């Protein structure tokens, strides 16, 4: 991944509290896994920035290397990678997602 892409990703996750890199948009997800995460974030009452990787091939590839995570969606909260669909759904089912989303910065 070239530095431009890495810098763009960094700037996105640093300038938004909660960011979801996904396929499609939060209003029109184009993948079941992305749709699941959008739904649990809604239920957790979290506002979030969506980034549609389908519209940006460089980000789509770059984000996989960025977190050493080969799949999309990917959720970042205050600059930190939280997980993909399975992990986020687990956090939600255990009732832990809201705490992750609302925890104050150290």
């Amino acid at each position, binding site marked *: 991944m070239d530095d431009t892409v890495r810098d763009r990703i960094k700037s996105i996750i640093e300038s938004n509290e909660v960011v979801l890199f996904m396929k499609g948009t939060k209003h029109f997800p184009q993948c079941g*896994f992305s749709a699941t995460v959008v739904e649990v974030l809604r239920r957790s009452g979290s506002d979030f920035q969506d980034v549609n990787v389908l519209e940006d091939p460089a980000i789509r590839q770059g984000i996989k290397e960025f977190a*050493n*995570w*080969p*799949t999309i969606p990917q959720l970042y909260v205050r600059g930190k*990678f*939280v*997980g*993909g*669909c*399975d*992990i986020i759904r*687990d956090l939600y089912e255990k009732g832990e997602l809201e705490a992750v989303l609302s925890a104050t910065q150290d």
Partner: protein
Amino acid sequence: MVEAEVLEERIRAGLGVVSHLVVKDLTGTKDHWEALVVAPAFVGKTPIEQHQMVYAALGELMAGPVHALALKTYSPESWAKQEG
């Protein structure tokens, strides 16, 4: 597309001891998979690290042949509780 046996072999090879492994073809098209993995190597690892270990074991398969992989990872102890 990839065969279930290939995924199983790669996961076993990548994680060393695997106490329980179920690989399921979700769509019958051999590209949307679910894997349940129970391994001692997961002890003390976060869920993110556990999933990264499985992704690393699958390597380049994640970059094409496997379009989607739903993952459930457990250490033997947490799996026993889950089953309990």
